[in-house]
């Protein structure tokens, strides 16, 4: 039980890596706030954790919107009393070259993959700093380190997540939150 008494918030927790992480964190003792846009799947993941004796809530959130991010952090704090771990995992992918990537799809990928990470971190940091510790984990990609084909916006967004992570690690020095 490596996360006993920890409170975690997982964006994009309704499926895939986010769902698997929510289940594992709960098994390791953490309370889990799951966010995502798909209410049906989100409630199903939370229900599965509750049935296994864990603690979980689903909070419908679009991480592109600051107001919804604020509500996700506030509701996590009111449900579990603190926030120790933020897993910025929400992400979307559309396969396009620069020639055929529409401006809407560019914005969508940059907003979910990158701006969502910024907004959630910005709102999660104050309670972490106040309690004297915290961990932020950002889900980037192999394609945040090397380029891939037909993935211009995805590669761009994930490359920035790598560097955003390093920049936040430097900013959040001791006396602020620990930051992975």
């Amino acid at each position: 039980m490596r996360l006993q008494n920890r409170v975690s918030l997982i964006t994009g927790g309704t499926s895939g890596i986010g769902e698997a992480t929510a289940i594992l964190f709960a098994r390791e003792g953490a309370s889990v706030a799951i966010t995502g846009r798909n209410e049906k799947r989100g409630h199903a993941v939370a229900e599965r954790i509750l049935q296994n004796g864990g603690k979980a809530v689903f909070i419908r959130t679009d991480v592109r919107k600051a107001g919804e991010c604020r509500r996700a952090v506030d509701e996590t704090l009111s449900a579990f009393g603190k926030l120790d771990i933020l897993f910025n995992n929400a992400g979307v992918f559309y396969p396009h070259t620069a020639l055929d990537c529409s401006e809407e799809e560019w914005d969508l990928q940059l907003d979910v993959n990158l701006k969502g990470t910024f907004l959630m971190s910005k709102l999660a940091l104050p309670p972490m700093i106040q309690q004297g510790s915290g961990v932020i984990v950002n889900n980037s990609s192999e394609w945040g380190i090397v380029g891939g084909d037909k993935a211009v916006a995805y590669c761009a967004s994930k490359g920035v997540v790598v560097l955003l992570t390093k920049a936040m690690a430097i900013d959040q020095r001791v006396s602020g939150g620990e930051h992975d």
Partner: protein
Amino acid sequence: MISSSKDAANSLTGKVALITGGASGIGRATALLFAREGAAVSIIDLNDPMGQAVGREIIHDGGRAIFEHADVTRAADCQRVVERTLRELGGIHILFNNAGIIRRASVVEISEEDWDRVMAVNVKSIFLMSRQVIPIMAKAGGGSIINTASGWGLAGGPRAAVYCASKGAVVLLTKAMAVDHGPQKIRVNCICPGDTDTGMLRNEAQQLGEREDLFLAESARRPLGRIGKPEEIAQAALYLASDAASFVTGTALVVDGGGLAGS
């Protein structure tokens, strides 16, 4: 609740681990942690009293361990320790190539003998040990090899030319071995520690002619504001050794309190 951490994916129950440079520092901390997680540990080092003491500590705590003296830059020594480990512990599932030394000098300052010695201990030993152990792992259906590289295998540092060269070689040797032996289900990864509280770190202050307290204070200048503990690097080795890292190979895991985040 499905399982406790003892029988979870990070346990090493039933595994045999061979650790070079296991008498002190990161190697010692890893030997103790692996034993606590259920592995039988073969400790290899040049320092007999300290290596034997680690073995005794593990056995005293109810674990299984052997110590064998070896110079891992010599092929015959590597063969001998592998054979003894197989004979007495029954297999090798985890190889932690951790033996390493440092010389703080620029290329102008360093002697040719020191250059050769650092490259032999830090790099050639990995080649010599791995070529003994890989056939054993392949035959057994897989294994995990972990090499100790360094933050200075990814970025350069002052007056550490041969150390940087050797650790850069470890990072790429790790990736090359991961490519070669993935099909045999042998995972090969390295750890890139930042400054960690070991005898080697304190020895650096001596080599540079600096006051130890000032040197350590400078080492602590990183986002988490302190140097690492050997036990914290051992946790990274445990992750890479265990089934928790079952999809991880060819990686250089940086464990440095954020020291490299800005470089």
